């Protein structure tokens, strides 16, 4: 059961450069600089590492999309916007292991021939930005970042960019627009970032946790790494557990563990031994599962797909039997309404309509037909927007109706739903 922790090692003061160096820190950068860039990419590709930001896209494959020759500079954006409700994992890396992330950024930069890497961190994380800034400054002072790194001839810059409060900027094309100093509107794809990214230049966007895995792959070798956890979605994964559990927190685990084991063994089970009513497995955008549906389901891309949900950011929210799910879905929908950037009509209007209908259920004056009306609005958002926020807003509603329809039915007002009570109307 116990595995060496690879992303959040249990070593005191590991965030300090000298402690990190004393444990072999930045030696994987040295190793990478002695390899050909394409060999580094190949190593990451063969390791099976998939993005930890929500989409589970194969990281090495993404890197190969970058043009080898380019007359424009190439950029790397590291996504630390971490704003998906239920997600609090990248913050642990910023605080406890920033140098491994920085080393990963530099290895990735070398593999792709990056001129400058931008680390985009959500504005609210001011405290953690200070921590990361200190680590970056220390790495610069030691010559790990900047010109002619370790005498290799390779140079790259690392710039921290602070966001200012917009969930949508975690979407990769929105992040690039935000970095360009614009409103955080997502872009239409194609063109894809590897061809036409920030300032029209080839760009790759990777999540913080994804990047922190890169030095681990070089240290263990792709083969050993690929044997950690689930073979089709290997490696350590930071699972955040919040809500109704005795020991909420972020746990570094191999992929492929049972959700029941994560909740019961790592997160200490549900207070008062109450029954689990529902679980949101990977941040509020992922489809909600019934408590009686999670037996046998594993925390990996295949396992959660088979269960009718997805890994997302592995930010699991556990709800006990007393939870008012109508209140939960109303709050989630309010969030997407607030965070919709407003570009696409289905999302801009639809999220507001869904919120209004849900408030009718919450306040007890919904009509029976409102359930299908709500589903209809959600179905008309899904797939009809520039970015995935539309889907992210639709999926929780669709899955809540599909899996907890009785919760909605219970909250329908006695007929007639509109107008004064029947008795008054008659007299």
């Amino acid at each position: 059961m116990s595995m060496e922790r690879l992303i959040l090692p249990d070593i005191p003061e590991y965030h300090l450069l000298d402690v990190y160096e004393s444990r072999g820190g930045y030696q994987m950068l040295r190793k990478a600089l002695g390899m050909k860039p394409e060999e580094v990419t190949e190593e990451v590709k063969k390791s099976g590492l998939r993005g930890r930001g929500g989409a589970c896209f194969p990281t090495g494959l993404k890197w190969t999309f970058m043009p080898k020759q380019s007359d424009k500079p190439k950029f790397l954006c590291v996504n630390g916007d971490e704003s998906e409700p239920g997600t609090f994992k990248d913050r642990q890396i910023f605080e406890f292991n920033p140098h491994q992330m920085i080393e990963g950024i530099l290895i990735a930069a070398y593999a792709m021939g990056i001129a400058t890497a931008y680390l985009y961190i959500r504005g609210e994380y001011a405290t953690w930005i200070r921590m990361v800034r200190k680590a970056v400054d220390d790495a610069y002072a030691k010559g790990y970042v900047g010109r002619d790194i370790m005498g290799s001839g390779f140079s790259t810059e690392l710039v921290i960019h602070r966001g200012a409060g917009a969930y949508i900027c975690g979407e990769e094309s929105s992040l690039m627009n935000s970095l360009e100093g614009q409103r955080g509107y997502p872009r239409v794809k194609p063109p894809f970032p590897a061809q036409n990214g920030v300032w029209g230049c080839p760009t790759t966007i990777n999540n913080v946790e994804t990047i922190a895995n890169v030095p681990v792959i070089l240290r263990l070798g792709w083969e050993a790494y690929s044997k950690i956890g689930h073979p089709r979605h290997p490696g350590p994964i930071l699972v955040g557990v919040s809500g109704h559990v005795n020991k909420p927190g972020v746990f570094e685990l191999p992929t492929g563990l049972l959700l029941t084991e994560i909740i019961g063994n790592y997160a200490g089970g549900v207070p008062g031994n109450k029954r689990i009513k529902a679980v949101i497995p990977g941040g509020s955008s992922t489809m909600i599962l019934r408590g009686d549906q999670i037996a046998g389901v594993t925390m990996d891309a295949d396992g959660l797909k088979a269960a009718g949900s997805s890994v997302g950011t592995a930010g699991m929210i556990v709800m006990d039997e007393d939870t008012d799910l109508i209140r939960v879905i109303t709050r989630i929908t309010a969030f997407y309404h607030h965070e919709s950037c407003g570009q696409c009509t289905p999302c801009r209007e639809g999220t507001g309509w869904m919120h209004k209908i849900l408030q009718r259920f919450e306040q007890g004056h919904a009509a029976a037909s409102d359930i299908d009306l709500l589903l209809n609005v959600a179905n008309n958002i899904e797939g009809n927007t520039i970015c995935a926020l539309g889907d992210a807003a639709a999926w929780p509603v669709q899955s809540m109706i599909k899996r907890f329809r009785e919760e909605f039915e219970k909250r329908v007002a006695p007929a007639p739903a509109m107008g004064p009570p029947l008795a008054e109307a008659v007299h």
Partner: protein
Amino acid sequence: MLSEKSLNAIEELKKKYRHPQSVVLPALWMWQEEHGWISEEGMKQVAEVLGIPVHHVFGVVSFYTMFNQKPVGKYKIEVCTNVSCMLKNSDRILKHIEDRLQIKPGETTSEGKFTLVEAECLGSCGTAPMMQIGDRYYEDLDEAKLDRILSSLE
């Protein structure tokens, strides 16, 4: 006006991006740290320093929720009420602050000391319920802890 230190920092930052417009968020942060909120004067100066239209700066300010478009209290209290905090009774935290300070979300106390806001997920789900005051996170809150924090600021 922006301080000399900030103006110098902006010039340094311009070198790190392909276009000076990229410095708009950092420059607005500097203005807000110095003035507490982003006034029209602030937008005009940021536009001028970066050589971009002031309407563009306004578009940016109005898009990002952390930029204060009007003056706020000395302490801006942001209580997370998103799902993970809601499940841990963030409504009680919010209510307690409302009762103690006699303001509703979006309002500022009469002497201008506290502004109360409901916030979206701040990434402290494992230590819910929580709030942010200025740059600082206060986690694992209950009413007694809240009283101690507010007393220390009053």
